[in-house]
């Protein structure tokens, strides 16, 4: 597994933020809300969730927009939107440095920034990417170069309670057996990610205690 690193409350003016890195991929997520919502986005029975993702260079193209909608629909299921009707939660993700793991890094950054902002959620969630090499070994959190060599790349977003699949995304061909093997491997790796979350948050609240 690549090295995970995280800094919570990185931005001072947003409700919650997290700078998260897996290996050489770095993403910065910031959360604002639940707060004011634009008129045409207002939903009478729940909060409106808006995720925007901007790449490190250039304009946001169709690929980034598709990524945005995957993240939106993942996060939407986890946060308790029904607690805050007629509001909006904005999640802004800025890719800082890219090494192939944009999806999992931004999902994890989003989760930690939501925790940082104190938005109520059903459970935490974590994304793990793995790839299958031509010699059919499974690599967890590969680099971009390793991904290029591989047969297939799969990303799973798992929830923090029972490690169930929240969202899955796969490129390249896998047979059913390999697919399940990838899922198992990602579930194991996700446990470590959740432990890392715990450490990061403990560190944050530990410093809070000292001040008071």
């Amino acid at each position, binding site marked *: 597994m690549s090295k995970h690193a995280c800094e919570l409350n990185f931005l001072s003016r947003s409700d919650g933020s997290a700078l998260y890195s897996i290996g050489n991929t770095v993403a910065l997520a910031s959360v604002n809300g639940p707060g004011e919502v634009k008129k045409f986005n207002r939903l009478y029975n729940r909060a409106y969730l808006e995720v925007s993702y901007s790449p490190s260079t250039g304009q946001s193209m169709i690929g980034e927009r598709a990524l945005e909608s995957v993240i939106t629909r993942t996060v939407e299921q986890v946060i308790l939107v029904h607690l805050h009707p007629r509001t909006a939660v904005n999640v802004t993700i800025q890719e800082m440095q890219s090494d192939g793991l944009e999806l999992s890094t931004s999902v994890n950054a989003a989760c930690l920034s939501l925790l940082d902002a104190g938005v109520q959620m059903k459970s935490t969630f974590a994304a793990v990417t793995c790839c299958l090499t031509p010699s059919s070994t499974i690599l967890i959190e590969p680099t971009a170069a390793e991904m290029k060599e591989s047969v297939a790349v799969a990303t799973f977003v798992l929830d923090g309670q029972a490690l169930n699949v*929240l969202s899955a995304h796969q*490129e390249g061909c896998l047979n059913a057996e390999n697919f399940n093997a990838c899922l198992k491997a990602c579930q194991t790796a996700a446990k470590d990610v959740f432990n890392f979350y715990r450490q990061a948050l403990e560190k944050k609240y530990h410093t809070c205690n000292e001040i008071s």
Partner: protein
Amino acid sequence: MTSLETWKTFEPESYYKSFLEKNKRPDGRGLMKVRPITIKIGTVTTAEGSSTVRVGHTTVMCGIKAEIATPALRNPDEGFIVPNVELYPCSSPKIKMGPPGEKAMGTSQFLKNVLHSSGVLDLKDLCIVPNKLAWCLYCDVACINYDGNLYDAALTAIMAALQNVRLPVVSYDAENDKTSVASERTLPLMIKLMDPTAEDESQGSGEVVVVLLENGSLCTTHKPGGQLILPNILDDFVKLAKKRVKVVNNLIDRVLTERMDTS
């Protein structure tokens, strides 16, 4: 308005639940039952390859236009394939005028992902002269009637249309740097692994798309958020999709042979 419609409008949740309790859907089919699918090919004469696919009420048309381009510097011996989905405002009251929305963009990106990762078409086959000329296939999928399950319909349409493509012979004269194109379109494309088919189950809050190849290996899974599911339910979806691949493949084959016979 009948009382049934009033119920549907004011209490949509209890309306659908009442059907689900009886393991049925409002249109009368069972939970695991798919809608009938019809495929026609060669429906648009201005396109090099075309198809019309209906899945229940959902109607999509795919037209493939071929143009000649210079290969990219990074891959000098490869052509291009550019899939795009257009959801026209006439297809559903929910779709507004203007640039493509989230659904259309998501489906476009999904199609690109499937076409590239399934290897249905070797991009090297689209190259005419390395570093000089290559085919660029614009696969535009137009949705005329949107009644759910766009992934499945769009993918089936694109696969059927790809198999309908006929390209003209291109000859290249290296000395004069001249290119000439034959007037007849004769060359079919080499489609290697035939027909991935998507199985997509949208049941209110969650949807899963599984794309399988004919040999049974999973080519793309796409589950953009939605309800939590257990891994073994994923397996069930795969099993369901496997059955469907056979049905759709047989259908495309039949349409193709029928067309061969007539022409």
